[in-house]
């Protein structure tokens, strides 16, 4: 019961963070919001796993964490660069 409330609150936080996702003036803001929402959802996954009491579900969270990390890194790498004209070779 407490855990479901917890999930709700965390989801609520995620919903608030959607604001930044929607209105972030810059793409990096949005990526930051993605990171935030992602980790909140990761937490939700973890809490759900705990709620159902099966260790298996944590695997999903773990893997999701890895992939979120990879995602955000890739975004940071490819969206966070100055301009095409300034971009030289390497």
């Amino acid at each position, binding site marked *: 019961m407490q855990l479901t409330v917890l999930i*709700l609150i965390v989801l609520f936080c995620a919903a608030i963070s959607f604001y930044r996702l929607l209105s972030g003036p810059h793409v990096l803001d949005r990526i930051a919001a993605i990171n935030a929402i992602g980790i909140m959802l990761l937490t939700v*996954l973890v809490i759900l796993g705990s709620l159902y009491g099966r260790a298996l579900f944590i695997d999903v969270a773990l893997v999701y964490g890895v992939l979120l990390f990879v995602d955000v890194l890739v975004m940071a790498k490819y969206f966070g660069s100055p301009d095409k004209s300034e971009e030289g070779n390497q």
Partner: protein
Amino acid sequence: MIEIILMLLILLLVVSAAIALFSKKLLNSIITLSIFSALLVIILIIFQAPDLALAEAVIAAGITTSFFIITINKTEGVN
């Protein structure tokens, strides 16, 4: 109780899908897509489908997003 969570998740899912589809900048669409998949993963977990959730997490949230990012970068760039 879990139904409320599910409702909220579905709402968020639809909202994120809407953002992904109709936001003005392409980048936003793509990064929102990863959130969409994450929400989907949670819903699938609630549906007791850990295997499917795992696959969705690794493939849709992870790999496909990277595909999109590379593609958009190779085509029109950030702008």
